[in-house]
């Protein structure tokens, strides 16, 4: 008997991974103060990539994670199959 559906686990792992990545990159940004280099137009290509990764992780944790969780809860309430759960 499956107590927790596989899609729930995958969604949970994905959300936690995004949030962890966000926190790690936040710490990196705080320690390296790359934003200051960006404001001074003095950043290198790897620093630009790091900034983009940070913004992507922040975007995902602010946009995709809540949206996925809300959609998941709605699908559970309505008991909709096929949207988030494999058939």
């Amino acid at each position, binding site marked *: 008997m499956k107590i927790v559906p596989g899609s729930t686990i995958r969604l949970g792992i994905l959300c936690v991974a995004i949030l962890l990545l966000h926190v790690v990159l*936040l710490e990196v*940004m*705080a320690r390296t*103060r790359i*934003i*200051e*280099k*960006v*404001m*001074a*137009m*003095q950043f290198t290509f790897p620093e630009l990539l790091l900034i983009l990764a940070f913004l992507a992780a*922040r975007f995902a944790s*602010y*946009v*995709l994670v*809540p*949206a*996925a969780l*809300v*959609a998941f*809860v*709605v*699908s559970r309430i*309505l*008991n*909709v*199959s*096929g*949207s*988030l759960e494999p058939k």
Partner: protein
Amino acid sequence: VILRRGWLGQVCVLVAFFGTMVFFPAWWSGRDAGSWYSGDLSRQQGLARTVAVQIQRDLDQQDFFTGTGLYSGEWLFGTYLMAGIGFCQLVREHPEAAGEFTPRIETCIQTLLSKKVREFDANSWHEDALSSLPSNVGHAAYLGYLNLLLGLYREIAPGNSYVGLNDRITEALVRRMATAPSGLVETYPGERYPVDNAPLLASIVLHARATGRESTDVISRLESGYRKHSIDPSTGLLFQALGADGSPRDAARGSGSALAVFYLHRGLPKLAREIFEAVRRELAVNVAGFGAIREYPRGQTGSGDIDSGPVVFGFGFSATGFSLGGARACNDPRLFRRLYASAQFAGAPIHPDGRLEFVTAGPLGNAILLAMLTAGPEDQL
């Protein structure tokens, strides 16, 4: 049954997914904007304590990553200036906090007067700004910004030990501005920036107010000269740079205009509001609840520089941050909320030891945000 099995249930899930994507981020990012806008003391104190910790670290030019000594010197100067202005505004709005932050204001002024901070200006002019007071030569940035802080401090502490210095700098700046052919005092030799003359002009007005001479013809002449040369008649924004004859040397831009609104709002609120209206009309953009300010007016494009920061999809980082101050000073809660949501998203505030720190901002960014978030609406004070 229809919801469970049919396409309507799927639609509900999709609506929930995309609806949350569109509305949640800006709502979540802007959830503290109301308390900032209303002047919540605990929030202001939280950020002010972070700035106080950062300026106590005895910063120098090596703490900044601008790539040149001049810009690092400017950022060092800007950090203590914005911190001092922020503390003054906080104390003005919440006099009960004077005991905690007045010593911080003194620290800022003392550091601004130190040789290591004056260096960026002295190296450009080959003379020290404070030694040059009897002459008619420039130093708009150092003297103008410093004098604004001295004027703001004088408002909340009329008997402070820098009143005499405020008198002497003001006298020199009035003379320099009145005799400048372009109506603007030079920041560096041959360089005239309207935004650097905004705090200079505001400091003259604050001084006149403090000494009971606010309604003089001198101020009216200086203000009309500033308006005539600095404001682009087609957009209402500030030109970024002027030539010796007062003709524009750069476009009318968001970063300079937004920062000028902040500097002018205490001394010249009518002029500040006019420029703010132009910023809102020509530059403000709403992206799914997040506010952004364009660096160049609609229909124009250009690159970023040390003043604007990066310009991405036309939006200026500096212009967006500086406009927070204008939105609060000019009583626009809707724009303030949207801009705060953007600042919160990019700045990533955390709460170490009960303080409030914008993680990505660094010492200068936190000091600027303190100044902008405590910019005082006149009718609430």
